[in-house]
């Protein structure tokens, strides 16, 4: 037991050479995998070649996003090691670094490196958009709005509009944001812009979330489906849609949407919640699986999963005090609507609404919309 170290079973010797020991995630994208392997070999031969290293790191970060696989982020960082801590890191290195830091929730460092990149290249649209994201996630909405405004001159209209709509959607202007997205996603505009599928999926999911906040549930449903049709594998969209279905008590659809063996923990959480609420046969197994994943992350000292762990702790473990501690710690790091919501839910369940005072202040000052948030905030404020 001491030596188990998180292992799921006892070690064994495979019976034959053909026994499969591991299925690589790259199996789903063989071309990208071949490209990665070739670049990796080239970088290994010539580790100080910036161009090669940037291409490899870029591939890794893209794979990390598509597969929701943080393992690739560490590889990207290692490929960039020669330029990582130098005073004159090239701008593309700074931007990739910030992306990795943002993914690991090291938002302050991400911001520093993006500001360094933008000081050298104010027209770097990617750096600007990433900065807007970091500002928004950490609750700096004026900063995010300014970053989005500055995107207008350097990026396609759909990028700047979606960026701004994202901020507006969280600061009391959801209706305007919804309409702006409607316009930019209109068939004529989209064609003119020849916007990529990924871009339109991003904007469409955002519009669905805003529709939800405006209580336009039929529109939300339609938009989530439209986004899924554009990019069926996007984990963010699946998670947002699953949350929408959970709120409508459509648990069977969540279970259909997310396989029980999904490697993506954010998705597994939703499935575990749906299974628990509907009394599905595999509810306990998937919950155990998720608990082991949280434990494995804790063992290495990672704290990126606080939001999900708070939800799990509140709903599955039914430990409101522990969930509240996690949710409050999470709120110090990120301040998105989901973070506000779990903090309020945990504070109410733990009968300590005063613990979510900061969250209530943030909701009041940003004018965050949404029926569920409003209801929780009302309850937490008390009579």
């Amino acid at each position, binding site marked *: 037991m001491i*030596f188990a*170290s*998180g292992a*799921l*079973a006892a*070690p064994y*010797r*495979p019976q034959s*050479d*053909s*026994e499969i*020991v*591991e299925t*690589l995630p*790259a*199996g789903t994208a063989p071309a990208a*995998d*071949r490209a990665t*392997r070739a670049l990796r*070999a080239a970088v290994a031969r010539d580790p100080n070649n910036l161009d090669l290293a*940037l*291409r490899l790191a*870029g*591939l890794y*970060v*893209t794979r*990390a*996003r598509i*597969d*929701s*696989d*943080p*393992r690739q982020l*560490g*590889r990207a*960082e*290692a490929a960039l*090691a020669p330029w990582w801590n130098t005073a004159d890191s090239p701008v593309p290195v700074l*931007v990739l670094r910030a992306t990795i830091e943002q993914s*690991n929730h090291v938002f302050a460092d991400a911001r520093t490196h993006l500001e360094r990149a933008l000081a050298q290249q104010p027209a770097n*649209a*990617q750096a600007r958009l990433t900065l807007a994201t970091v500002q928004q996630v950490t609750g700096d909405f004026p900063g995010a709005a300014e970053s989005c405004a500055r995107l207008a001159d350097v990026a396609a209209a759909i990028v700047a509009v*979606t960026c701004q709509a994202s901020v507006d959607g969280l600061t009391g202007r959801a209706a305007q944001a919804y309409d702006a997205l409607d316009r930019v996603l209109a068939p004529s505009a989209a064609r003119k812009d020849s916007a990529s599928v*990924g*871009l339109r999926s*991003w904007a469409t999911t*955002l519009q669905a979330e805003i529709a939800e906040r405006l209580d336009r549930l039929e529109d939300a449903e339609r938009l989530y489906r439209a986004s899924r049709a554009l990019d069926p594998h996007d*984990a*963010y969209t699946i998670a947002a849609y699953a949350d929408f279905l959970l709120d409508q008590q459509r648990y069977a659809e969540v279970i259909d949407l997310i396989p029980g063996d999904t*490697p*993506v*923990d*954010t998705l597994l959480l939703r499935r575990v919640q749906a299974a628990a609420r509907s009394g599905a046969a595999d509810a306990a197994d998937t919950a155990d*699986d998720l608990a082991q*994943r949280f434990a*494995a992350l804790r*063992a*290495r*000292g*990672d704290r990126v999963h606080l939001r999900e762990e708070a939800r799990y702790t509140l709903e599955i473990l039914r430990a409101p005090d522990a969930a509240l501690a996690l949710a409050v710690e999470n709120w110090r790091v990120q301040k998105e609507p989901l973070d506000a919501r779990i903090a309020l839910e945990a504070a109410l369940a733990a009968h300590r609404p005063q613990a979510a005072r900061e969250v209530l202040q943030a909701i009041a000052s940003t004018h965050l919309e949404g029926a569920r948030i409003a209801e929780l905030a009302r309850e937490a404020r008390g009579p």
Partner: protein
Amino acid sequence: MIGRLLFALCFSLFAAPAFAHKPSDSYLALRVSDAAIEGHWDIAVRDLDAVFDLDRNADGKIDWGEIDGRRAEIDVYAASRLALSSAGNPCPLTITDHEVDRHTDGGYLVVNLRAVCSAPVDALDVDYSLLFDIDALHRGLLKLETGSASVTSAVFSASTRRQSFTLGGLSAWTQLRGYIGEGIEHIATGFDHLLFLVALLLPSVLVRRGRHWEPVTSFPRAVRSVAGTVTAFTLAHSITLSLATLSVVSLPSRLVESLIALSVLLTALDNLWPILPRRRWQVAFAFGLLHGFGFASVLADLQLPPRALALSLFGFNLGVEIGQLVLVVVLVPLVYLVRRTRTYPRTGLASASAVIGVLSTGWLIERSLDLRLLPF
């Protein structure tokens, strides 16, 4: 090209959940006993694939054959990424076997390893550098086990590659506490020792005048008498406990246990009719020698490693003294308070001694004839 690639990436940043799958970890479990270190090192197959391009047939799957054929290379690689040393002397690694296992994020190659240091390990230096060159967020999760109970956890990262672990200090304290606990437990559940002390202490608040008992005049007098008795008992059993544990003297256990029972019987009888020397400390010392052999057999049953002997001897003895002291502190004030009552010397002392005498007679018969009569 790069610009476009990165740009495509940035558009999805809003849509990127930061938490997913799992970053790379290896799990290193080491167990230290004397100069030998044994353990296993679980390394993710995905990570080995990133180093060795294991997927030769490019089917997106790694089978055992693809690993088995590269084992020699993997061994050389792994051994070059982990250095164990103690007191400045390296402990060379040998990889003894390979297995596979699963962790939360997939299949792992289990590398069983063994290292031998030049001397018993008191402090272990671990130098860990697996994978950091290709994965900056890789972590090495170490579980270090020493002796019987203590486990230390540590995390190695690209910025923390070398860590030192003091095994002696940590485990010594843990072990010492364990032995003290054993000592306390032994005296608390060893009714023969307890009743011997009770029989010895019951008359400590009285003075013998011919065939009668009279109460002592003051508490300090009683305490002096108790202190003498207890010190003599402690000294005596410490001597024989040490001699027996260090294998200087050894007596057959059945003989020792029978004599202990006899010592309890004689002490109880002496409370009724004087048969032993008048000075209680002499009685306590003489019989204490016997009881020490009894304690030693308990310690022997714990099967201590030779290195821990002095520590265990000290801890166990300390535990016995603590248990004994608790009895004294509870019993002596109690009997002091009742010493002047008419009934204490006649009825209380006599009947308690009689009960102890009967019990010890039972033990004596049991132990000398190897029977089982009493429930304790």
